[in-house]
């Protein structure tokens, strides 16, 4: 019973089709249009013989097709019915559920909103005693991070004065890496930072996305202060209301202590971490501080862990096909029916 309880059919329509099949079979038997199953056509009869009494043979053959007692017709019908049952069972494609398949990866889509203002040129990171600019750190970490992602789609939005979509949500990691490599600060989008506008643009882009899953937004910036026309905090709050979670990552140092002695004509601006933390809180996320390349990587990993969510999906199982058994039974049945005739032939 347990075996039958676990039985499923891929195409149960064929089981219903058995009824009309049997009906047609019955009509054919009734019209004497079917020979008994033991008289299946000769597969290898290549030789055709002659017989002088061809007229007599014709009568015999015609008589054999029409005549025959009723019991014989029933037996013929039953033989074919059993064969049809087996064939229909096989066509219905029965299967049993086997091992459960592993769940799909538990990642979400992520949209990185990357600040490419001129501030990214500031060299306030120290790697192996050498000053490294913020952009280099950001690129290397992003590249490494993208390379480690699996089953996750990533989109890149860059902004400074104006935002634009660098890469829409995609799983093409090679493309993503190449685009990240080509990032240059203050080239395409202007020098200064308009964070509120960027967040609004992000929201606009994400609302076009019709996927049921809401991507996590990761804002990576070294913002010190934003324009006053749109308050990023309000936009973050609105994003959160829309069901998004905004994580923020602060890049750069928080004080003037990290300022380079040779400023190369750039005005040093430390990152305003308090401001970023406020945005993260309003956006329903957390603020991570990236003091060095290691901690930035830790921050992004932490976001990834925090945002990990199981996909709501029914458990999937390996289907073990069983159609071969009814098929085999049908073949065996034909063989069995032919067996007595074959024995007679040997004698």
């Amino acid at each position: 019973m347990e075996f039958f309880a676990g039985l499923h059919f891929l195409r149960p329509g064929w089981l219903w089709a058995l009824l009309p099949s049997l009906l047609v079979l019955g009509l054919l038997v009734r019209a004497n249009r079917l020979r008994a199953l033991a008289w299946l056509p000769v597969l290898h009869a290549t030789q055709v013989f002659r017989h002088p009494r061809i007229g007599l043979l014709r009568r015999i053959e015609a008589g054999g097709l029409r005549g025959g007692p009723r019991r014989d017709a029933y037996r013929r019908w039953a033989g074919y019915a059993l064969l049809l049952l087996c064939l229909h069972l096989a066509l219905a494609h029965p299967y049993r559920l086997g091992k459960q398949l592993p769940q799909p990866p538990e990642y979400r889509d992520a949209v990185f909103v990357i600040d490419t203002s001129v501030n990214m040129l500031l060299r306030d990171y120290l790697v192996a005693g050498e000053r490294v600019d913020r952009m280099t750190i950001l690129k290397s970490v992003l590249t490494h991070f993208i390379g480690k992602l699996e089953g996750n789609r990533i989109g890149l939005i860059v902004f400074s004065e104006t935002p634009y979509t660098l890469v829409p949500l995609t799983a093409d990691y090679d493309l993503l890496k190449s685009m990240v490599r080509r990032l240059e600060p203050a080239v395409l989008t202007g020098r200064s930072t308009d964070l509120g506008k960027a967040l609004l643009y992000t929201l606009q882009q994400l609302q076009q996305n019709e996927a049921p899953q809401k991507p996590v937004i990761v804002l990576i910036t070294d913002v010190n202060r934003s324009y006053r026309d749109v308050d990023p905090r309000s936009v973050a709050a609105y994003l959160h209301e829309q069901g998004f979670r905004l994580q923020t990552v602060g890049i750069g140092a928080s004080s003037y202590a990290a300022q380079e002695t040779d400023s190369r004509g750039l005005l040093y601006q430390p990152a305003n971490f308090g401001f970023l933390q406020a945005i993260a809180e309003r956006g329903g996320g957390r603020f991570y501080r990236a003091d060095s390349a290691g901690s930035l990587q830790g921050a992004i990993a932490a976001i990834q862990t925090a945002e990990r969510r199981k996909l709501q999906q029914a458990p999937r199982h390996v289907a073990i096909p069983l159609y071969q058994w009814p098929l085999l039974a049908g073949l065996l049945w034909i063989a069995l029916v032919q067996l007595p005739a074959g024995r007679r032939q040997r004698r």
Partner: protein
Amino acid sequence: MIFPAVSGALARFFGQWTADVLPGAGQPLLDDAELRELAARTQSLPWFFLDFQQDACHPLIGETLSVYRGRGLEFEDNRAYQPGDEPRLLNWRLYARSGELYTKVFTEERRPQVVVLADRRAAMRFGTRRQLKATLVARIGACYAYQARQQALAVGGLILNQAAEWLAPASGDASLDALVRTLAAPCPPLGFDQDQPQLEQGLRLVMHRLPAGCLVVLISDFADLDPQTARPILRHLSESNTVQAIQVLDPVERQLPAGGDFLIEDPASERPLRMDGRDAAQQARYAENFRSRQADLDACFRACGIPFRTCLTTDDLEACLGQPDGLTTGD
């Protein structure tokens, strides 16, 4: 409509072509050595199978007494004179004794002719064991011809091939040779659907061409003989002649071969007939049909007073020639 016609024509063309290239199809059924052996064998047979049941009405004047009254050597009777009688036949001695006119009646002596009606049509060009049916027909016909020659009887024949071939009865080695060669001529297979003379046509031909008083030997399988329509012809033939009927069959005609499926060529349709040798019921039906057919034939011949016997291609020649019971040959 065109396609079946074209394919049929092609099949007929290639069928004939393949028939020609069949090994042995161009050879005569019986070669010279076999014919010589057959002649010697016929001479040494201890019994006489040219059995004239009605030695009544042989047309030629000869040594054998006939029941014809007429000019002959053998005196039979005196009968009262009737006006118009030949005056030379008046029995003057009896007139002297009795004073009444009597005419002498003689019995004519006549010599019979032997005519062999041999069937060599498509259905006879068939054989599963030992020899073709046509070969056995040739052997039997040749035996009759040799024995007729032995007794200096005129011998002729009607050979049914694709057309009927009439060999007028004549005495002498030439006519004998012609008959025997025609009987033993090469016999390539013919399609069953080809036009060929019916057996009844042959019987009518014999009936019309033969004078009364001959020995007619019918050698065929009589497969296409309808007992109902043929009965008047046979009766007519047997009333004025001595007729013998010899049926030549192959064993598979009597009983379908057992075991396996067979596809059998059906000239009437594209699809061959399928016979199941394992189907006992089908075999029985065939045997039953065949038996009833044989019974009909037998009844028909008996009603016409024609001795009818059946021989198989596997039988010995002596048995086919109607060896009397209790008589055995040397071999």
